[in-house]
């Protein structure tokens, strides 16, 4: 580390020339040097393992033997067409092995529903925190932070206790005399998964949305009010657009990981609520077909990435149109 990288930025060497270049290069090298341990972790434990997963997806499993010759069979199997028609939720699949496709669509739909629910639930809370809370703000923030840090497994498990056949809701309603026998439709279905996911992730987005609301310059709101905008108009024309980027990135932070969620469908999903993550887990354990599991996880990541890119491009397009219109 050199002791003048910092001061050089403004001092004698500030403008152009060899010295400025050298100082800047030195600064860049120090910066990257300080980052290197983190980069080593990211490369050795994220990039290389994902690379290994890619290689694995080109191999095949024959019983107990792993065939390491390169083949696209796993991917072909996922998209192979067949005359046998499988129907699911009114959709027809002409696939020889339709399970992954069905689970993928189902996971995307459930995750999307949970994401929308999470944003709709969290936004008013974040709004309240940013614009209404004046006293004990720090206490409110801590109170909303705690659930986010408490065990995900336990938050999901608690819904099993709440919704279960012998659970809190059923026994509560029965002891109140409102029902005679437990309601069976509460647990082990897609709705239970969506509710549980919404609950488990909602505390994840309140703070990011709050931060984007808190950053909004209050003088703009005052100006709009002085010029006669009503409260709802101020919300629509100032608060909502300015908080949108933060809200969207928070929504993506929920959508992307929940598509591949494993714990929630496993604990509260039952047979009807399984998602793609459960299939990946099965392939890596009981069904002993890691290469196919690797291919499915990569296709899942690919589909998510494409969907997110399409979504972000659409947003950019809408923004451009809105700017041209005004």
């Amino acid at each position: 580390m050199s002791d003048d990288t910092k001061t050089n930025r403004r001092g004698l060497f500030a403008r152009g020339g060899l010295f400025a270049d050298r100082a800047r290069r030195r600064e860049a090298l120090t910066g990257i040097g300080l980052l290197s341990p983190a980069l080593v972790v990211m490369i050795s434990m994220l990039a290389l393992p994902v690379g290994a997963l890619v290689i694995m997806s080109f191999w095949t499993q024959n019983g107990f033997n792993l065939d390491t010759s390169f083949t696209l069979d796993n991917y072909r199997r996922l998209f192979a067409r067949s005359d046998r028609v499988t129907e699911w939720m009114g959709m027809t699949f002409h696939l020889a092995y339709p399970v992954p496709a069905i689970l993928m669509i189902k996971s995307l739909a459930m995750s999307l529903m949970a994401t929308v629910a999470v944003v709709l639930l969290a936004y008013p809370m974040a709004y309240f925190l940013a614009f209404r809370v004046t006293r004990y703000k720090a206490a409110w923030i801590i109170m909303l932070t705690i659930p986010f840090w408490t065990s995900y497994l336990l938050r999901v498990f608690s819904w099993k206790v709440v919704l279960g056949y012998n659970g809190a809701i059923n026994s509560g309603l029965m002891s109140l005399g409102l029902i005679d026998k437990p309601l069976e439709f509460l647990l082990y279905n897609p709705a239970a998964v969506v509710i549980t996911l919404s609950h488990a992730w909602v505390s994840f987005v309140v703070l990011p949305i709050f931060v984007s609301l808190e950053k909004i310059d209050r003088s703009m709101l005052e100006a709009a009010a002085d010029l006669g905008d009503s409260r709802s108009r101020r919300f629509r024309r100032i608060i909502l657009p300015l908080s949108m980027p933060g809200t969207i990135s928070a929504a993506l932070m929920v959508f992307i990981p929940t598509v591949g969620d494993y714990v929630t469908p496993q604990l509260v999903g039952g047979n009807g609520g399984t998602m793609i993550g459960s299939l990946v887990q099965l392939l890596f354990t009981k069904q002993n077909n890691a290469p196919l599991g690797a291919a499915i996880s990569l296709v899942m990541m690919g589909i998510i990435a494409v969907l997110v890119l399409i979504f972000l491009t659409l947003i950019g397009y809408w923004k451009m149109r809105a700017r041209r219109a005004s």
Partner: protein
Amino acid sequence: MKKGWGLTVYAVLFVAFVYGPVLILPLFSFNDNTFATFPLTGFTTRHYVDMLGQRQMIASLMNSLRIGLAVTVLATAIAIPAAISITRYRFPGKPAVLSMLMLPLVVPSIVLAVALLVIILRFLGLPLSLWTVAAGHVLVALPFCVSVLISRLEGFDQSLEEASRDLGCSPMQTFRRVTLPLAMPGVISSLLLGFIISFDEFVIAFFLTGTENTLPVYLYSQLRFPNKLPGTLALGSVILVVSTVLVITAEVIRKRGVQTDNPGDY
């Protein structure tokens, strides 16, 4: 401006929704019944006493504590220079590096888990153990540690560091005497939060552990047995209390000391 009560009512309902289901666990853990059902039948602490007698549970608790400590020390030690580099140095490709550091936050943990599983078992030929779990946990804890430290380092006046340099301190001296003390609240909360992440993490531990369990993996294995429910509730309640205390400590420490007007620093 007239302030409506609607939002306040909503906020209270929201908090009830977020906390309600989770608080069911401690509620039933003190209930004198083997099922988690209403009406409550009486107060007991016997589920907690039973829990203490379970050797496997104590063993997995010790494993989780050991992993958590190792993970958080390592992740924070890696995150400190990384956060300094990101907040104090200019170099090309910084946004790309920063988003790469945040990647483990968005990749589904099952993908991280199977990717690590494949490289550990098939390519490196290493046996699964608590070490492999700890390695995976460093990866998921790092983005949190880095972002806590970045927001802290951005939060205080950098002219203090410049003054120290102008007065003749070496970068190392400046780091030890100025940056580190000022960043200390961030360092402590990074240590606490890194610990909680590892302590509570389930999916990666579930895939990467060998014969020994961590506490969440043990807890998960107990969920299959309905007759063990009360013990599970008691254990879950203890975990909840521990994480809550650690989070509150981390957050209070983080907010104390140097005041900041950076709206991102909440």
